[in-house]
């Protein structure tokens, strides 16, 4: 019995640190609607700074002072980031802020190694909390007890802050309706900055408090960020109490789960999230999100098919690309093939994300399933390459059909998180089921047959498929189905009122996007000759998001350019420097600030400005009246 009590308390201690970080993320999202990918980076910097300070300042006061000082220092960094970076892009398309914070995260990962060195750092134990307390023969670390107490205390302080202060009232109001606060004449800028600072403070505090029980190292951020997103979503976005309950739920399930299924923790949080989102689409304590508060259409030019001149230009570009084998060596050709494959991957996500308005955070799952499909068919069934290429993507298609069915029941961030959960579940299976997938060591020897083996032939194959896929998806954008899909993105209310089953349209789009990603994955397996769980991992999903956003999420073909630029730059940087993340992160942030509409979005805007130098002076541009009064 004592054992179960202690196991429960241990779970609570794990929950406390998770809650600190998660509550910060939740507050930031609630008010600013920013999906702050850099939250883990702030957590990590908090730990690093706390390590440095605790090593220098001695005594109990020195230790606890260092923890608080570190969190304050990082909050200050957060303020700087908000003012310099985020303020410029609040009006950019949704998720663009995610791209900016992703860039920041990349930079921080390299910066901490430059500043603090590559070694794992083990900090001091907390004065007064070094030992353990005996509980009927079981030991409970006293620091765990401290954390267990800290969780509810922080929850209480936050509750008071939100219920009893004017600032808190504004934050709650903004969480419910951002536009309303703007209308109240509140200085929104400073409200956002202060909220961001508080959120970052909590993340850094969570990091700093890890000093006595963890090692400080440069991958801490990724270790926590996904888990924290999951906790926030399970609890309900913007709900502090929800974050607390979810943190406890996840930690306790883990603490007791490993007693029955020792291998469960790798997959547990995602299972919980998937179940919660399917049963309660807005999380345990969340409220249904108000339908789209801003119409993106006010800034968007309606899409149109290419004019015949533009078609010729695209054809010319394709022909030029096809001549690459005439002058490039094997390496460039293989890089070219890789880029072509990523074009397929990016346009498939673009179809779902830009045309369908459904931003998937787990799109790599279908890419990877396509790759595994090929590997299974080629290695186990020994089928010829062309058959594998045709049938392999079906695994991606099936995965998309199953997961998509559940995912399209949700929208917005919840959709994104459910897709992420599914992707992680698939990844865990590939990673863990060693007897079938080879686990981490993957499946080797999936090389192309002779006819496609030479780098130039494979390049032509990849380029050809990429061109076909891009053309096909583009055609679909301007097909009756594409119109219906865009309609569901713009107004669910209206689509339903004109007889369209929006969920079925979106599900179909999900399957199309998943299958297309699977085609990319199938080619990728042959390009690399092997398949690894990496092929369906989070970082690949994030790559796809970055490519789409970089090209311009509001454009029809931005993803193509985004994929080419991002992938080429990535390959080149990794080849040239060990600090590729620092440079790439900086580049992404630069793009975000300079081209908030993405590369292609920017070009289109310039072209349009040239086309009509004078704005249409029509009285029809009068602001729409939202409702009576």
């Amino acid at each position, binding site marked *: 019995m004592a054992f179960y009590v202690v196991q429960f308390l241990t779970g609570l201690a794990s929950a406390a640190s998770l809650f600190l970080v998660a509550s910060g993320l939740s507050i930031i999202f609630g008010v600013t609607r920013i999906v702050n990918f850099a939250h883990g980076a702030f957590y990590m910097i908090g730990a690093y700074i706390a390590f440095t300070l605790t090593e220098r300042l001695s005594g109990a006061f020195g230790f606890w002072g260092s923890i608080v000082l570190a969190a304050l220092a990082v909050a200050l960094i957060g303020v700087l980031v908000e003012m310099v970076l985020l303020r410029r892009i609040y009006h950019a398309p949704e998720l663009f802020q995610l791209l900016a914070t992703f860039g920041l995260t990349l930079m921080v990962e390299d910066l901490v190694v430059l500043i603090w060195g590559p070694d794992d750092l083990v900090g001091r134990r907390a004065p007064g909390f070094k030992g353990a307390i005996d509980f009927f023969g079981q030991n409970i670390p006293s620091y765990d007890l401290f954390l267990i107490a800290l969780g509810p205390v922080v929850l209480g302080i936050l509750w008071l802050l939100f219920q009893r202060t004017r600032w808190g009232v504004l934050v709650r109001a903004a969480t419910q309706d951002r536009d309303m606060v703007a209308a109240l004449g509140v200085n929104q800028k400073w409200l956002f900055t202060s909220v961001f600072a508080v959120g970052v403070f909590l993340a850094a505090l969570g990091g700093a408090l890890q000093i006595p029980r963890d090692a400080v190292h440069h991958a801490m951020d990724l270790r926590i960020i996904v888990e924290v997103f999951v906790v926030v979503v399970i609890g309900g976005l913007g709900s502090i109490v929800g974050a607390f309950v979810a943190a406890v739920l996840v930690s306790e399930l883990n603490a007791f789960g490993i007693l029955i299924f020792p291998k469960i923790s790798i997959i547990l949080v995602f299972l919980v999230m998937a179940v919660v989102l399917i049963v309660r689409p807005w999380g345990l304590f969340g409220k249904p999100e108000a339908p789209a508060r801003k*119409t*993106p*259409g*006010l*800034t*968007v*030019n*309606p*899409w*149109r*098919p290419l004019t015949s001149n533009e078609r010729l230009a695209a054809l010319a570009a394709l022909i030029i690309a096809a001549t690459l084998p005439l002058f490039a060596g094997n390496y460039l050709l293989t890089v070219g093939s890789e880029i072509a494959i990523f074009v397929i991957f990016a346009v498939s996500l673009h179809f779902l994300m830009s045309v369908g308005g459904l931003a998937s955070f787990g799109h790599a799952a279908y890419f990877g399933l396509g790759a595994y499909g090929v590997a299974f068919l080629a290695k186990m069934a020994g089928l010829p390459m062309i058959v594998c290429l045709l049938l392999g993507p079906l695994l991606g298609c099936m995965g998309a059909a199953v997961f998509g069915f559940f995912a399209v029941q949700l929208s917005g961030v919840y959709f994104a998180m459910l897709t992420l959960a599914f992707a992680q579940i698939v990844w865990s299976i590939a990673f863990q089921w060693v007897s079938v997938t080879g686990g981490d060591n993957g499946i080797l020897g999936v090389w192309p047959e002779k006819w496609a083996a030479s780098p130039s032939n494979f390049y032509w194959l990849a380029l050809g498929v990429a061109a076909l896929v891009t053309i*096909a998806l583009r*055609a*679909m954008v*301007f*097909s*009756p*189905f*594409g*119109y*219906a899909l*865009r*309609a569901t*993105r*713009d*107004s669910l*209310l*209206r*689509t*339903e*009122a*004109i*007889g*369209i*089953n929006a969920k079925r*349209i979106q599900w*179909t789009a999900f399957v*199309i996007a998943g299958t297309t990603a699977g085609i990319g994955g199938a080619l990728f397996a042959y390009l690399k000759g092997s398949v690894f769980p990496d092929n369906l991992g989070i970082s690949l999903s994030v790559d796809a998001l970055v490519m789409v956003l970089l090209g311009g999420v509001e454009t029809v073909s931005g993803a193509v350019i985004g994929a080419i630029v991002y992938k080429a730059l990535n390959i080149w940087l990794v080849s040239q420097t060990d600090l590729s993340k620092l440079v790439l992160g900086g580049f992404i942030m630069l793009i975000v600030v300079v081209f908030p509409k993405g590369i292609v979005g920017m070009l289109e805007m310039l072209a349009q400005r040239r086309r009509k130098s004078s704005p249409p002076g029509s*009285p*029809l*541009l*009068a602001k*729409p*009246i*939202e*409702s*009576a*009064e």
Partner: protein
Amino acid sequence: MSVASPLLAVEGLTKSYGGIHAVRGVSFSLRAGEILALIGPNGAGKSTCFDMLNGQNKPDTGHVRLLGEDITARKPREVWRLGVGRTFQITATFATMTVRENVQVALVSHGKQLFNLFGSAPNFDRGEAGRLLELVGMGGYADRPCGELAYGDLKRLELAVALANEPKLLLMDEPTAGMAPRERVDLMRLTAQIAREKSIGVLFTEHDMDVVFEHADRIIVLNRGTLIAEGTPAEVRGNPQVQAVYLGEGLVYDARHRDGASA
């Protein structure tokens, strides 16, 4: 059902939220080609009542029949397929698409081409889309981005979209809210004309009493969820209960009073 079935028959609709009756036992009917106005002060239950007619909201009890067929439990998209078009109080259109494309989406749905992956949507029923836009006086705006339209134009676009499936019944929630007085008259005149030509039944809610009394064949009045009056404009105008309700709210409906846009 016999041929004599009314186009729309509403029987004993009731809906309550947490013990508060939003709509209580409302019954009325509507004939083909008839224009019926549903009026009442704020909070009378008009919107709740309206949303229950096309499945947007489910009643606790009561029935909605379309040409005798019970459509109470149907989803909005199914009701639409049976020939019921509707417009919204706050317009719901596809902001990133052009005016013509907005109509074309409805035509695609009507033509059951929603899962046509490789057809050309820009050319889909272009002629019909153009005719519908001409009909509501939006012909010149076909290539405009919908997001740029003035509010009155959005209302007219919604009407065109609602007409795309050759409906038998049009449900219009505050069709003229937010419009200039001149536009209101035009839009309702247009609606009435279309309704009579195509023998479409029209049910609309409206704040502007000028619009109501000028265009409605019949009026039903809702107060606190209950139907308190029904009849021709003249009958309703003379109904003391109705007068009490409106005067009690401090609103006077008068032909000279043209500030009906305010809620």
